[in-house]
């Protein structure tokens, strides 16, 4: 019988939540790495027992962890992230040049085919890759070398590379997104890159339709249609039907155009999920109501999913890496909040229940569907 394992990264450790395919009863293990910030935990699609975790601390910097047994035991692996060559400068908040400085790993994306190959998106924004199970890391410096790097600028959370999408039908194609530079695509396995931000509009940057400078929060794709991308950015939900060559707004009737997460239903490529958040300064759900919005039409027309979610006095946030979807039928949808709740729906979002209530602030949620 199938089962699921939810991998939760929090401000103070990692937690693994396990259930059988009914997804009704959950076992929680953790905290793993108690007291450390765990920005992301993700399993290898090629070997579900191989997990990678990004562990960091204001005192001790970045460390990396790997498990070969589904998270029962862990071993520290390489934590040396050194930019290739002279890293140069990007823009600081005030527009002045600022040197590139490594701070932390935000996102880990294991290869679709090789458990020992894993990509890391880091702050200050760059893409690294390991081909030896995380022991050593090399920068794919063609991204920073694209030429627009000096015009990249940090978002409020830092200048992070937070999204890495690997195209299952075209092994050389990688999509990434950076806050606040925008989205980029490589068609040669990360050697060279092009910005893919045509159609994005960011009203408060000097040139609202600039090639780079957009605060993209998250991109999602369905593996059966890797040229169709969905984006939640700071202002607007967008979609692209041509692998990012152009984008159109599909915010439609959402109550706000701001949010962090976006994800795609496991079996319906036109069904997508977001969690609208009130901006620019509050960063909690509008009206104190925690609502996931679902579109069955690939955007524009959205319905609020509220059953089981708090509909009063809820002032949490849902951060950009904190939503995931399993591949069971019906698919499960999961998201975590800065209030420490992890909510799950075992019916594609129709109803929800908290599967963990009182964790530290949740930074990331991933799910593995295990057979």
């Amino acid at each position, binding site marked *: 019988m199938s089962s699921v394992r939810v991998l939760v990264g929090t401000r103070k450790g990692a937690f693994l939540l396990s259930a059988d395919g009914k997804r009704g009863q959950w076992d929680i293990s953790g905290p793993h790495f108690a*007291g*450390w910030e765990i920005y992301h935990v993700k399993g290898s699609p090629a070997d579900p027992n191989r997990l990678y975790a990004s562990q960091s*601390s*204001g*005192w*001790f*910097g*970045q*460390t990396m962890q790997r498990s070969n047994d589904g998270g029962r035991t862990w071993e*520290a692996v390489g*934590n*040396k992230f*050194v930019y290739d060559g002279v890293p140069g400068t990007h823009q600081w908040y005030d527009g002045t040049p600022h040197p590139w400085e490594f701070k932390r790993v935000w996102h880990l994306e294991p290869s679709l085919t090789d458990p020992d190959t894993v990509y890391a998106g880091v702050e200050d924004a760059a893409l690294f890759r390991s081909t030896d199970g995380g022991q050593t890391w090399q920068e794919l410096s063609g991204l920073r070398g694209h030429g627009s790097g000096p015009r990249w600028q940090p978002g409020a959370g830092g200048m992070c590379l937070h999204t890495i999408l690997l195209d299952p039908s075209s092994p050389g194609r990688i999509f990434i997104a950076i806050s606040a530079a925008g989205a980029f695509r490589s068609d040669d396995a990360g050697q060279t890159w092009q910005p893919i931000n045509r159609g994005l509009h960011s009203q408060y940057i000097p040139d609202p339709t600039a090639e780079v400078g957009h605060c993209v929060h998250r991109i999602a794709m369905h593996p059966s249609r890797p040229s169709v991308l969905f984006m939640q950015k700071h202002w607007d939900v967008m979609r692209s039907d041509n692998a990012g060559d152009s984008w159109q707004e599909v915010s439609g009737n959402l109550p706000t155009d701001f949010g962090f997460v976006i994800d795609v239903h496991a079996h319906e490529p036109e069904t997508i999920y977001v969690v609208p958040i009130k901006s620019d300064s509050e960063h909690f759900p509008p009206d104190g109501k925690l609502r996931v919005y679902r579109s069955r039409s690939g955007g524009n027309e959205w319905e609020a999913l509220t059953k089981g979610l708090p509909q009063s006095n809820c002032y949490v946030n849902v951060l950009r890496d904190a939503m995931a979807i399993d591949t069971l039928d019906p698919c499960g949808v999961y998201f975590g909040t800065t209030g420490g709740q992890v909510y799950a729906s075992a019916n594609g979002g129709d109803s929800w229940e908290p599967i963990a209530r009182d964790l530290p602030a949740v930074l990331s949620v991933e799910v593995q569907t295990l057979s």
Partner: protein
Amino acid sequence: MIRVILPPHLRTLAKVGWEVELELEGQATQCSVLDALEARYPMLAGTIRDHVTQQRRPFLRFFACEQDLSHEPADAPLPEAVASGAEPFLIIGAIAGG
């Protein structure tokens, strides 16, 4: 033999107890002690001093014999009591933060 006391999170990371004992060839300095520590426990590399610059992380301090040695040169000899193993070399994390 040099005795080193790590902050609790680094003990967990390196899977060691209260105190680490290191055999050192040559003069005992901050640099040589940390080199020996990182050679024996590679997972500690980068957690006490920066991988590239070798600068001490700002929220850590080095103490021995009731003295703060944090701003001593990295290649300065450590006190004889540390070099002989009579006193430990302490790596202390700032008691701050949330």
